[in-house]
């Protein structure tokens, strides 16, 4: 269709608003309440236009184009009306600075600063001129407000983490309310009261912490005024530089815009161009990046142990020292542990370094229990070749969603947004989890499962399916008969008691799953962390085949997939992570090169420990040398996100102090040890070599990567589909008289290298503390435990401390705690687990008892 705006003919397709089309053609129409990510609202009325043969002045943000429309956007009448409307808005917004005649000079010399109401002037607004209201005042050239000015004198809300809310500056555009409801699904804020008393608020004016806020910061980002402002940058002034990079705090790989001032990170905001996140982020990406990079726990100088004490030395000294020492421990007596949070390049080099210089096959990273690794292992064991790649966007198209083993509203908030889109489109969400999810109101069915019994749940659902299926006429998939046989042999008579789920709930679940064409099954660590994880995944695989669902394995760390792909083709003759710790404690292993988080190594019996990390941690007390590595922000490279996309991240600032990027440290060491294959000048040299060598990167073109393209890595897509006969030996968790509680270990992703995010950031700590020990309401009442009280939890092999967090939805007898390898040894759950140092490793549930702490 053709429309005319201000005399200009424009061709338009589809259902678009007048404002959208005008914006696209660079025709400026002032507006305040409209936002590209939100549905039209028509609240501020500034975007009114004149349309031929239409009565009145319709708002362009909520008027859809029709063929032949003739629109005028700048008539004198319109401008007059807009000024009037804006004056009304300004009468309730501090405006002295906005309309002051000396505004321009004042900016530079602050000449008039004392002549306007200080509290209400722009100079003291924390937005520092980044104000859409101010922009509109300037374009409409307002120089006086003829209405009496009203200052509402509402209390500024400062009690919540990360941002302040000053509704005296609010113009009630409703963007925050809409983004919270439409995009984030939290609806933590709403318009409350009416008329002149209307304000944005929460239920009973409670703090955001108690009203379902996820602290994603989306409201702060869409606010056109200074009402919502990030506390950390209130008085920092305007940034002098802006850079883009990829967030390293989970496996989604959101693109972030980083604001800098004098080489210091001021804040990080989601980028609208991010392929995955499209202008959204989560609490970590939005508010924690600067805390991570500029943490006071950063190590900024190399250290070596001299006379039993760690002392600062030059890089030359440290590298020579480490190179000399490492030469003595080549071969089987040496091991290297890498973090799944370093770049592909760095992991590639660590691998190369281990095999060429340390001459050892003992290289591992903490990905072994990740859904990716377990899924892949299960497939290999059963002769299947399965793809791991997926597109997050596919999730929003599903009609039924089954989520098991992860609270994705916390661990993968951007994937949660896709789930939300599906649910809002009518899809049904089934959740299986021990604890109610934070936004559980979106699920159609919640199966409260006892952790560790997932296998029974899934097999029983398969059985219900088979009974139904016999009536239906489905194409037969290979292996059905032997799968049926194995199901028949499985004793599921006490499945209800075992899983804690009722017959009715299971029936409802099977009906929801059966009655769909397009299902998505999302699974996380909760399914795979058990020693029988691969059998759990096999059961899920069978169920997915029956329901014709797509599987989405949700890994945690940002470069888990990269680490997995690079490590995939190396020999698996070497020791794995647990075997390394086991060998370290038995004394079999002499030297350990630690480039990733590890449990407290008190039990280890090593002759050489080298730590390459960015943050001070507990294991320093055993280290012979500490090499300060820079963070992601101080170097460049590539990460592969959970979907399988290779994304380049950029250097944002120069390395802090004397810290150096991991690739530089490893290259220097290798060169000092006489290796000529490490002459890399920058990470891109490594990328080029890596692309040549790693098979799954063979489709990557460096030139495209450099241009900022996100490329899916190559995968064998021979998708054979065949059922897997179930094998099972009874191995669910048992408590005892002495240890009457079962504690599930939550693989929390609230860490970066060896920094615990909730211990670093007070804000995150208020939202979720890694030292919380979750206790059910019933148990808390029985034991008279108070919220926040110090307690200790003891297992047969150790104890750790924490604080009581009462969780209403948790079943009696079950505790929950975050599993963070890098936690302070007193508070670290890893101290409880003998099996970190043992071969038979089970990190699902632990039988424990509670001890009161003084």
């Amino acid at each position, binding site marked *: 269709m053709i429309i005319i705006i201000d005399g200009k003919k424009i061709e338009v397709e589809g259902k678009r608003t007048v404002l959208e089309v005008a914006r696209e053609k660079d025709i400026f129409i002032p507006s305040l309440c409209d936002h590209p990510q939100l549905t039209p609202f028509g609240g501020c009325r500034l975007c009114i236009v004149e349309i031929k043969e239409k009565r009145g002045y319709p708002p362009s943000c909520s008027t859809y184009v029709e063929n032949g429309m003739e629109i005028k956007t700048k008539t004198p009448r319109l401008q007059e009306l807009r000024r009037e409307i804006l004056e009304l808005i300004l009468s309730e917004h501090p405006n002295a600075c906005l309309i002051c005649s000396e505004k321009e000079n004042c900016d530079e010399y602050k000449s008039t600063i004392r002549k306007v109401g200080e509290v209400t002037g722009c100079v003291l607004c924390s937005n520092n001129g980044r104000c859409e209201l101010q922009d509109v005042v300037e374009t409409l050239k307002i120089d006086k407000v003829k209405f009496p000015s009203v200052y509402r004198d509402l209390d500024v809300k400062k009690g919540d983490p990360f941002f302040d809310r000053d509704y005296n500056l609010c113009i009630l555009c409703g963007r925050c309310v809409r983004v919270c409801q439409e995009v984030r699904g939290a609806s933590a804020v709403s318009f*409350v009261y009416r008329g002149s008393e209307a304000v944005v608020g929460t239920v009973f004016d409670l703090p955001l912490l108690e009203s379902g806020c996820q602290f994603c910061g989306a409201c702060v980002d869409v606010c056109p005024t200074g009402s919502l402002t990030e506390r950390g940058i209130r008085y920092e002034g305007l940034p002098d530089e802006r850079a883009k990079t990829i967030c390293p705090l989970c496996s989604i790989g959101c693109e972030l815009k980083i604001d800098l001032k004098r080489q210091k990170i001021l804040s990080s905001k989601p980028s609208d161009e991010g392929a995955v996140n499209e202008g959204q982020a989560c609490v970590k990406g939005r508010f924690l990046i600067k805390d991570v990079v500029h943490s006071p726990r950063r190590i900024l100088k190399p250290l070596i142990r001299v006379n039993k004490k760690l002392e600062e030395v030059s890089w030359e000294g440290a590298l020579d020292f480490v190179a000399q020492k490492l030469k003595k421990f080549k071969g089987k007596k040496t091991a290297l542990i890498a973090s799944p949070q370093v770049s592909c390049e760095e992991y590639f080099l660590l691998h190369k370094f281990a095999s060429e210089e340390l001459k050892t096959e003992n290289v591992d990273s903490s990905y072994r229990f990740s859904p990716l690794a377990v899924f892949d292992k299960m497939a290999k064991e059963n002769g299947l070749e399965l793809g791991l790649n997926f597109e997050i966007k596919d999730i929003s198209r599903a009609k039924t969603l089954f989520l098991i083993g992860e609270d994705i509203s916390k661990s993968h908030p951007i994937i949660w947004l896709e789930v939300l889109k599906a649910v809002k489109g009518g899809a049904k969400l089934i959740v299986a989890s021990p604890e109610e999810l934070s936004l559980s109101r979106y699920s159609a069915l919640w199966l409260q499962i006892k952790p560790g019994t997932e296998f029974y749940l899934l097999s029983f659902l398969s059985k219900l399916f088979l009974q139904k299926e016999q009536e239906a006429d489905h194409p037969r998939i290979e292996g059905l008969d032997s799968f049926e046989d194995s199901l028949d042999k499985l004793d599921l008579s006490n499945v209800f008691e075992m899983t804690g789920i009722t017959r009715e709930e299971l029936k409802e679940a099977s009906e929801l799953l059966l009655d769909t064409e397009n299902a998505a099954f999302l699974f996380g660590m909760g399914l795979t962390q058990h020693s029988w994880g691969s059998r759990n995944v096999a059961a899920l695989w069978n169920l997915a085949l029956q329901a014709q669902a797509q599987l989405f394995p949700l890994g945690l760390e940002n470069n888990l997939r990269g680490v997995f792909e690079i490590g995939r083709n190396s020999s698996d003759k070497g020791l794995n992570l647990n075997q390394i710790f086991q060998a370290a404690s038995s004394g079999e292993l002499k030297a350990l090169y630690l480039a990733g988080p590890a449990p407290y190594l008190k039990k280890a019996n090593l002759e050489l420990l080298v730590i390459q990390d960015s943050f001070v941690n507990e294991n320093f007390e055993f280290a012979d040398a500490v090499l300060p590595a820079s963070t992601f922000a101080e170097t460049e490279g590539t990460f592969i996100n959970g979907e399988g996309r290779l994304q380049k991240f950029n250097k944002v600032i120069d390395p802090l102090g004397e810290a150096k990027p991991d690739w530089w440290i490893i290259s220097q060491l290798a060169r000092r040890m006489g290796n000529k294959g490490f002459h890399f000048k920058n990470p891109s040299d490594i990328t080029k070599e890596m692309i040549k060598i790693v098979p799954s990167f063979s489709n990557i073109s460096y030139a495209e990567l450099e241009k900022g393209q996100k490329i899916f890595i190559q995968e064998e897509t021979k998708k054979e589909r065949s059922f897997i006969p179930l094998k099972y030996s009874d191995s669910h968790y048992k408590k005892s008289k002495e240890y009457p509680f079962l504690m599930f270990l939550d693989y929390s992703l609230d860490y970066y290298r060896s920094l615990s995010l909730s211990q670093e950031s007070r804000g995150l700590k208020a939202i979720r503390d890694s030292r919380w020990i979750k206790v059910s309401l019933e148990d808390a009442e029985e034991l008279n435990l108070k919220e926040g009280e110090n307690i200790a939890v003891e297992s047969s092999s150790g104890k750790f401390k924490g604080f009581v967090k009462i969780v209403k939805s948790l079943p009696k007898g079950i505790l929950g705690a975050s599993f963070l390898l890098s936690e302070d040894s007193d508070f670290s759950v890893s101290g409880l687990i003998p099996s970190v140092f043992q071969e038979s490793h089970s990190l699902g549930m632990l039988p424990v008892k509670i001890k009161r702490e003084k």
Partner: protein
Amino acid sequence: MSGLNKDHGKLIHMLHDTQKKFGYIPAHSISQISGELKISESEIFGVLTFYKAFALEPRGRHLITICMGTACHVRGGVQIVEEMERKLNIKVGKTTANRKFTLETVNCLGCCAIGPVVVVNGKYYSNITIKKVDAILKEYQESE
């Protein structure tokens, strides 16, 4: 939003029922309704603070509503309010200490022809003057 919002239309009805049952909307009812209808508590709070029909504090047994619409206003509505305040010894929006009466004003009841209008428990009293106030109150003071 079709799939999700099927039940959202019930919100107002549920709030009415709650108001009727308790005489106000208690906090625990908000979380109950939130779970039932899958609407956040803040959203429910937004709806219930929008309508005058819902109260957040317990109301008295008898609800007196005085119309302050234009027509009632010019015919002496303000004086009626003042008289009621004096007689009940409370301000508009408040409840008497014995929880018998709650006094509220409303912007227009739509029956301007018979103003000034006072409504008690849904019963309409027309053409009210200051003198008639006592009689109305008496009617309810005596009834239990």
